[in-house]
């Protein structure tokens, strides 16, 4: 196997097996893991404590136990997370860090069925005010305090600033990766692209950075081959499960950029510089735009996506609509109209982690490819 194949294989394996990643980390460092619920939680605080931040994104599950606690109209991420809570899947986590940027998360934060302690914090939504930064920095201070108590460690400002640098390094490398991947769709197909990005949720960030950095330099050394398929930008919460990504690939689509909450939204902005790490982390949220969960009375997401399409020379946008995600569903009519006015083609597919049959998605994607 080439170096590229090896790296891809390792990262894919990690992204498919979070439990093993947790166990390996414990073996290596003696420290456990802290779960991180979506979205935009300050993982750096956990990292600074020396523990492994583990992303919780649900999974492909048939929902049965969770039905007792959650009606069917909750999004499938939360349905599957609740199902796994009830199965005890998360009980090895030392704690769970829980942000509440949507109504569903607010409710879920109050009913964790596992045994780990839950640390809830709230993002401010009047984000461009300085008062919002102060509020969030204070929320983060309390998060740090609670983590220190639960994990029995001291999290110093110095360690936190260091972790922020580690994370910013990872963000930079990831941006490079997504740009490069756009030029090598034959090697980095949609499934692989996703796996490399997802692996960062289960690895100590600097380790992930090292591997992706190497991958990037290996890719760069290869000649760019002409791509005869169509290039798309994905937008939404996530593009899972893998079957969806494979359908994109089978129909000749390459993902040249993304605006996904599980992917680029997490690393397109760096945490700004400064001396007070909690304030720096808070300011990241202020500077962040273009996500349905970050209130924006100007709704800059549409124009941002159109810029992304132009910049990446994409042929179209694929809207990966998480079923029952209110914030995403509210954004859609606005940016869709903007796309229509600008002549940008888009395809609407539904994301539902509980789906076992992908015929509908196949039909839509195939029809769309025939249309382009």
């Amino acid at each position, binding site marked *: 196997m080439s170096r590229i194949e090896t790296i891809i294989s390792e990262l894919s394996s990690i992204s498919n097996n979070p439990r093993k990643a947790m166990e390996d980390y414990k073996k290596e460092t003696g420290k456990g893991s802290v779960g991180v619920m979506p979205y935009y939680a300050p993982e750096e605080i956990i990292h600074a404590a020396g523990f492994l931040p583990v992303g919780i994104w649900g999974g492909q599950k048939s929902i049965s136990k969770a039905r007792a606690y959650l009606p069917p109209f909750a999004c499938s991420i939360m349905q599957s997370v609740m199902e796994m809570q009830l199965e005890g899947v998360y009980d090895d986590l030392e704690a769970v860090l829980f942000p509440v940027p949507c109504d569903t998360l607010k409710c879920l934060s109050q009913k964790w069925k596992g045994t780990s302690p839950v640390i809830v914090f709230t993002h401010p939504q009047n984000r461009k005010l300085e008062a919002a930064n102060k509020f969030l920095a204070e929320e983060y201070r309390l998060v740090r305090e609670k983590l220190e108590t639960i994990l029995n460690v001291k999290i110093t400002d110095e360690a936190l600033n260091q972790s922020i640098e580690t994370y910013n390094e990872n963000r930079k490398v990831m941006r490079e990766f997504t740009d490069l991947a756009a030029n090598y769709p034959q090697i980095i197909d949609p499934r692989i692209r996703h796996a490399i990005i997802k692996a960062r949720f289960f690895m100590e960030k600097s380790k992930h950075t090292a591997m992706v950095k190497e991958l990037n330099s290996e890719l760069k050394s290869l000649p760019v081959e002409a791509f005869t398929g169509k290039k798309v930008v994905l937008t939404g919460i996530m593009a899972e499960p893998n079957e969806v990504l494979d359908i994109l690939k089978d129909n000749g689509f390459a993902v040249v950029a993304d605006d996904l909450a599980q992917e680029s939204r997490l690393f397109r902005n760096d945490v700004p510089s400064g001396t007070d790490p909690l304030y720096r982390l808070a300011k990241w949220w202020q500077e962040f735009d273009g996500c349905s969960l970050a209130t924006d009375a100007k709704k800059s997401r549409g124009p941002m996506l159109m810029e992304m399409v132009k910049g990446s020379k994409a042929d179209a946008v694929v809207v990966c609509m998480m079923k029952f995600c209110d914030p995403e569903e509210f954004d859609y009519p606005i940016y869709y109209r903007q796309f229509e006015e600008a002549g940008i083609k888009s395809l609407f597919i*539904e994301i539902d982690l509980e789906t076992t049959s992908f015929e509908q998605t196949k*039909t839509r994607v195939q*029809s769309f490819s*025939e*249309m382009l």
Partner: protein
Amino acid sequence: MFTMGIDIGSSSSKVVILEDGVNIIAGEVIQIGTGSTGPKRVLNEALSKAGLKLEDMAKIIATGYGRSSVEEAHKQISEISCQAKGVFFLVPSAKLIIDIGGQDVKAIRLDSKGGVKQFFMNDKCAAGTGRFLDVMSRVLEVNLDEMAEYDARATEPATVSSTCTVFAESEVISQLSNGVAKENIIAGVHQSVASKACGLAYRCGVEEDIVMCGGVAKDLGVVRAISKELKKPVIVAPNPQITAALGAAIFAFEEVRGANK
């Protein structure tokens, strides 16, 4: 030169045999769909009707929900593209297609060359599809092919407005027990189906000529309700159930002709 289009849906299987890309020499429908013996049977029926053998087909293209499981097909194309192709062939002035099938509803916008410009579908729930009408027809004890007649006699359409088929069923039962006339309930059922289809049509952009296809297009009550809602005339494609299979057969012809150049 003969080409064949096979459309395997969830509740029916259709085959069209096309001669030289213009003459429909067989167009068969069987009311059982993917995963059954339906596809094989309708294939044989079509061949026997045309007096041909499978080997006589220059190319076979499959479409529909069950298209990947048709072994005989050389290629598969989505039913969106096939509907567009088939309807455009039959009605060259078509700009908007409303296709209501057994388990889904689609609105397809065509460009001036009959290509797909945009499409929207509801493929996740039964409301507004043939399944919805099936359920209601059973509850009302009226055959599907009689629904339009009943509708024509309606004096005041009842409101059957539920987005959920199960709720709608209980609404209809409730209305029956309250003595609401079947004619009026059926008119309400048709309106409910129409509003679902029209919602998708509006998302696509409504432009004449509007053509309906799919099994439900045979129910003139639904056609009338859609026309009323859109305030525009609606053309029912001739033999509306085979339009996608026809489109597939045309695609097959075009590919053979293109390859021969």
